[in-house]
């Protein structure tokens, strides 16, 4: 140990390899678990290490698409490898973490969010590309309107000791993503390995304080040169690999959504999800429940999921991405195109894990070159965001059912006592009965003190919701999402088109308009239902008319006793050559019905900018953290569910997005 | 087949002949039925029929590689898959002369201990003990003695935990390979078992005291006993085949002393000695023939019961032998875990060769013999598998002949229960029993 005054105040220091044990001891003295690389089961894995002996001495890997083997590296070197199958995500964003517990004791229901595991960690051997990956996950999980509290706690506590690469695998392409091999930002301490030790620099005050407690001397010019030479060699090696032509890639890729290559890759792709699970930036999750037999206590856990599974984009009516090519296209376009729209960076940091660990040996570099052929490559840098935790909307709170009203045989409106923010028209809440997963439910009426949800029993969870009686407790989060653009409708003609249960989110819009009717011009509501028995809010239609809202209804089929209109909802206005001048349209119903409606509205002269739809997608989190509802550059939960057709562009009605 | 229709006893000419039909035996593994005809105080027919559907395992393994055979034969029985893997793996290794790491040998004993604990706890607490106390199931028993049932379940759980640690799951574990294990446990994982094993030893000792005190019918049935015997260890994976009347053979040579035959009305083959005699394998045989190799704690527990001699002659006392083996397996497992060092080579390399691979090990229910003919490609050309229950079947029927006259005068329901209890005391594993029915046409009389 040297005194603080002897510590290298300026310029890089040198830590002898024999003194690495002191680093381990210091970290442990600080109460941290040290995570670093070690050889297990034929691979370099990240795991908790007892001491420097556990590091992979003299080990290097051979990595090619679909193949990974350990081989001899430079003797004595501890970091001669590059990246193995595990990434730091396992510690910052573990595969399974508890999110909360629901306890039921008779009629009393309590929802408790989980406490983040705050045991402080130290990461030894973080590569430049992996620092970039941490920065990407920071943007995703901390940079949005809602931050992930568990990630925030783990990430903030972790001490990061980076290592600059002096070797490269054939699968590395950090240079084309602008993420390495030089470490530029985000580490507390940066090491560069030489034959007998490490050139060290501090990247933060925390790192400087650590170095001051270690036997570090000033590095010699020779040592500094050797370190720089090592990194330069790595850069040269990566640059010689195949890469990705990053500049302009997002637009090239989105222009290639109909490439025949997607079907070609789907023949090879096993949709096993390995690429997403080894990826250090992929963040998609699902929430699952575990209960005791009596249902008194239910633990909800968040688990790594993947856009390659069949259930990932499934909703009650079907699956938005049932074909393998849809799933591969979703993944690749998200990583290399829509991620940029959403987060301002690529979702790929060039570590090559998805290339090596694909059992089918599918190489993203090759696929990108085939699908979105490159102009000449230019290296781009990345800007890493600061860690900015945001307000927490991550767990359920109880809401009491104060009234229920059966609308149809399978649709029920629940009134919940409501405290806090009153949902805007078109916003939704995540809601579920105790012990069930929460599902997105649109708010059909909102006022101070109470909200209404109109729910169709489509599966066990919604069936259980509709079966709840007065006094029951529901777990809710919200209001969430972006609702109807009331401000865009002021002083304009408004057309509302609803199909089936799609009227639920539109009812809150209609009522908002009715409340300030004079601020809008002609308001016309077109309602479609399956049969006369399936019409919703029948008792309220008179009140709407009385408020000066024209209501026209139709049903898809009816018996001889029905004297009203029969035919699809678009029939209600497709005989009008022009709809009201300058109208704004709000549409909600099944996806295919909305497509047909939008077609007719367009044909009748309403531009895409003034046609708004609300979309249904599989949602787990409701706040843009789980990935399920991604649609092009949007998360439906956070950026929608209401969108204009102009915003959605090609994404509206396209199969497999 | 699943109804309760056949379970009642029907008296045809009740004064002269009583017939007991048990349509489907319960609390046994697999599907079997029982028929007993008693005329004038004399048993004229005792038939333990097995209607478990044939699954043709001896053909399923033909053409397959030894490592695949280990996965396949495990599926013969969900209760004792380890036993099938052990007999097979030793048979192959004996033929290939594989030199396994000594630590692997120890781990295999540990694996077998796990299966014995699981299987014996299942039989003692869930299948057999309810009989002695007049309950229809362990659930009913739990109403009366929840502590005992919880003790049994805890033991069973510990046995399962051992098998799961070594093989990934308690049923059909995946790690047993020719040459050793595909992965050996890490010392940290082994250490985590220690508290449960300490408790298991105590629970097993308590089990011996409990079952020794159960009200037990009296019966003397001097059966011929057959088990493995090893110079140092209580018999599991290794030893010579010995019998109470002086037989002594290598584990590869079962066929030199025994044969199988088919009986009409049952899907299982019966094994008998070459001279046609019945014999008994299992815990009572092992405790009697190799009691001097028991772990000291188990030997002490057995001595404390004073029942060693009765175990030899009264099948109803097999539950005590099983409990004593629970102590042995728990104590040996505890010792192995305490002294564990990971093998240097979990998986030895080997070279297949053609020839005959044969071996017998001690399944929880008794001797389990496998023989495979390996062809030039290293694949199985022919297989023969003799499970313990088909070896015991003749002895069970003989015991029924002995016991039946004694139940002639008790009420119908009692008689039936008593007879079923006797069958259950042999812990027949019928799902195994039916599968191994290899009698080649040449051997047929």
């Amino acid at each position, binding site marked *: 140990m040297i005194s603080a005054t002897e510590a290298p105040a300026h310029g890089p220091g040198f830590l002898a390899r024999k003194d690495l044990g002191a680093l381990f001891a210091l970290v442990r003295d600080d109460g941290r678990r040290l995570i670093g690389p070690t050889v297990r089961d034929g691979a370099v894995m990240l795991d908790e290490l007892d001491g420097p002996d556990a590091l992979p001495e003299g080990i290097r890997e051979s990595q090619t698409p679909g193949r990974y083997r350990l081989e001899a590296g430079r003797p004595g070197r501890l970091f001669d490898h590059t990246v193995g199958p595990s990434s730091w995500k396992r510690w910052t964003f573990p595969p399974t973490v508890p999110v909360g517990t629901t306890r039921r004791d008779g009629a009393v229901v309590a929802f408790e969010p989980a406490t983040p595991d705050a045991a402080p960690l130290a990461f030894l051997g973080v590569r430049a590309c992996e620092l970039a990956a941490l920065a990407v996950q920071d943007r995703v999980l901390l940079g949005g309107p809602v931050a992930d509290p568990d990630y925030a706690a783990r990430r903030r506590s972790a001490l990061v000791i980076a290592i600059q690469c002096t070797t490269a695998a054939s699968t590395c392409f950090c240079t084309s993503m602008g993420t390495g091999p030089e470490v530029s930002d985000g580490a507390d301490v940066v090491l560069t390995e030489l034959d007998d030790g490490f050139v060290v620099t501090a990247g933060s005050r925390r790192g400087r304080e650590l170095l001051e407690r270690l036997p570090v001397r000033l590095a010699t010019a020779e040592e500094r040169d050797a370190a720089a030479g090592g990194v330069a060699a790595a850069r040269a090696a990566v640059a010689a690999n195949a890469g990705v032509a990053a500049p302009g890639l997002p637009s090239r890729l989105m222009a290639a959504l109909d490439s025949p290559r997607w079907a070609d890759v789907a023949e090879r792709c096993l949709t096993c999800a390995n690429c997403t699970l080894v990826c250090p930036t992929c963040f998609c999750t699902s929430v699952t429940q575990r209960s005791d037999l009596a249902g008194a206590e239910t633990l909800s856990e968040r688990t790594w999921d993947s856009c390659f599974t069949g259930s990932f984009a499934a909703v*009650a*009516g*079907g699956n938005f991405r049932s074909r393998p090519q849809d799933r591969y296209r979703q993944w690749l376009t998200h990583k290399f195109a829509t991620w940029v729209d959403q987060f301002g960076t690529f979702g790929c940091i060039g570590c090559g894990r998805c290339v090596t660990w694909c059992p089918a040996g599918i190489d993203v570099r090759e696929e990108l070159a085939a699908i979105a052929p490159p102009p000449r490559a230019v290296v781009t840098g990345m800007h890493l965001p600061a860690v900015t935790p945001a307000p927490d909307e991550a767990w359920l709170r109880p809401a009491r059912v104060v009234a229920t009203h059966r609308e149809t045989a*399978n649709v029920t409106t629940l009134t919940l006592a409501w405290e806090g923010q009153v949902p805007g028209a078109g916003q939704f809440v995540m809601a579920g009965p105790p012990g069930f997963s929460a599902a997105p439910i649109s708010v059909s009426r909102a006022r101070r003190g109470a909200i209404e949800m109109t729910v*169709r*029993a*489509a*599966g*066990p969870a919604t069936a259980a919701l509709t079966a709840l009686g007065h006094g029951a407790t529901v777990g809710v989060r919200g209001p969430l999402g972006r609702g109807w653009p009331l401000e865009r409708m002021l002083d304009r003609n408004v057309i509302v088109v609803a*199909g*089936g*249960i799609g009227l639920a989110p539109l009812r809150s819009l209609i009522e908002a308009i009715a409340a300030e009717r004079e601020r809008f011009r002609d308001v016309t509501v077109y309602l*479609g*239902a*399956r049969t006369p028995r*399936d019409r919703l809010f029948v008792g309220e239609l008179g009140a709407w008319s009385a408020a000066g809202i024209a209501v026209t209804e*139709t049903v*898809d*089929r*009816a*018996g*001889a006793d*029905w*004297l*009203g*209109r*029969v*035919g*699809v909802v*678009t*029939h209600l206005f*497709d*005989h*009008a*050559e022009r709809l009201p001048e300058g109208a704004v349209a709000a549409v909600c*119903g*099944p996806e*295919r*019905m909305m497509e*047909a409606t939008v077609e007719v509205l367009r044909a009748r002269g309403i531009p895409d900018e003034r046609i708004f739809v609300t979309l249904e997608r599989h949602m787990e989190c409701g706040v843009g953290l789980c990935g399920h509802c991604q649609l092009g550059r949007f998360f439906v939960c956070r950026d929608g569910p209401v969108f204009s057709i102009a915003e959605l562009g090609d994404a509206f009605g396209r199969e497999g997005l | 087949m699943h109804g309760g229709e056949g379970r009642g006893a029907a008296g045809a000419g009740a004064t002269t002949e009583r017939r007991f039909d048990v349509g489907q035996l319960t609390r046994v593994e697999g599907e079997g039925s029982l028929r007993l005809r008693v005329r004038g105080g004399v048993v004229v027919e005792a038939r333990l029929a097995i209607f478990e559907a044939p699954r043709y395992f001896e053909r399923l393994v033909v053409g397959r590689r030894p490592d695949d055979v280990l996965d396949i034969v495990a599926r013969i029985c969900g209760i004792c898959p380890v036993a099938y893997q052990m007999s097979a793996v030793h048979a192959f290794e004996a033929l290939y002369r594989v030199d396994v790491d000594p630590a692997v040998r120890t781990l295999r004993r540990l694996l077998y201990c796990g299966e014995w604990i699981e299987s014996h706890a299942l039989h003692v607490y869930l299948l057999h003990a309810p009989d002695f106390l007049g309950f229809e199931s362990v659930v009913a028993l739990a109403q009366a003695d929840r502590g005992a049932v919880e003790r049994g379940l805890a033991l069973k759980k510990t046995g399962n935990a051992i098998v799961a640690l070594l093989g990934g799951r308690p049923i059909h574990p995946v790690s047993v390979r020719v040459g050793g294990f595909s992965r050996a446990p890490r010392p940290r994982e082994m250490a985590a078992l220690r508290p449960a094993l300490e408790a298991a030893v105590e629970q097993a000792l308590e089990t011996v005291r409990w079952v020794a005190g159960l009200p037990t019918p009296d019966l003397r049935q001097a059966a011929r006993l057959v088990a493995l015997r090893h110079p140092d260890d209580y018999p599991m994976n290794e030893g010579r085949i010995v019998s109470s009347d002086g037989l002594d053979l290598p584990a590869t040579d079962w066929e030199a002393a025994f044969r199988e035959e088919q009986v009409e009305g049952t899907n299982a083959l019966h094994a008998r000695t070459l001279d046609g005699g019945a014999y008994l394998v299992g815990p009572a045989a092992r405790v009697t023939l190799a009691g001097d190799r028991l772990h000291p704690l188990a030997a002490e527990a057995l001595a404390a019961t004073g029942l060693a001699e009765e175990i030899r002659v009264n099948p109803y006392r097999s539950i005590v032998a099983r409990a004593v083996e629970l102590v042995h397996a728990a104590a040996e497992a505890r010792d192995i875990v305490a002294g564990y060092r990971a093998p240097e080579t979990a998986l030895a390399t080997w070279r297949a060769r053609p020839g005959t691979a044969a071996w017998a090990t001690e399944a929880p229910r008794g001797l389990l013999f496998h023989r495979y003919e390996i062809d030039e490609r290293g694949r199985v050309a022919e297989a023969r598998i003799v499970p313990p229950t088909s070896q015991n079947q003749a002895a069970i029927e003989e015991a029924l002949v002995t016991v039946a006259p004694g139940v002639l005068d008790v009420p119908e329901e009692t008689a039936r229960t008593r007879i079923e209890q006797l069958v259950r005391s042999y812990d027949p594993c019928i799902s195994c029993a039916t599968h191994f029915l290899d009698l080649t046409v040449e051997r047929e009389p």
Partner: protein
Amino acid sequence: MADRRSLAAELAASWFGSDLPPHARTAFLELAVEREVGAGTEMVREGQPTTGFGLVLSGRVALRLHVPGRGQVTILTVEPGDIYGWSAIVPPYRSTSTGVAVEPVRALVVDAVALRAALRADDALAASLYPRVLEAVARRLDGTRLQLLDLFAGQVEASW
């Protein structure tokens, strides 16, 4: 009853008539008679020869199919501006559904035989009338396809 001039205005204002050139409108009007019927009147009958081609001016005509076991099922209503009885000009000239006025209906009705004769004789009328009828039928086909999907039924999942 409206006079011919106001009928011409109504025809010109209707969806069906708005796109017809003056000659076709005049020719159509010459053939047509104005008809008013009460609720419950059967205008055409499924499977029977179609006697008239009509343009609904007001009221509502329900098109119904007979489904054994379910009785009469309404599959579409014809609203003002739209036509019924297009089978009057498409072989075999039999009605594909039963049309019933579900409220008092006022319509312009053309005799089927007369209309077919006029269309054969007057190419200009045929050239402008047929496309409009085809468009009306195409819209119904489109709507029928959507109805076939039964979109509002949702998918009721299995109990597990």
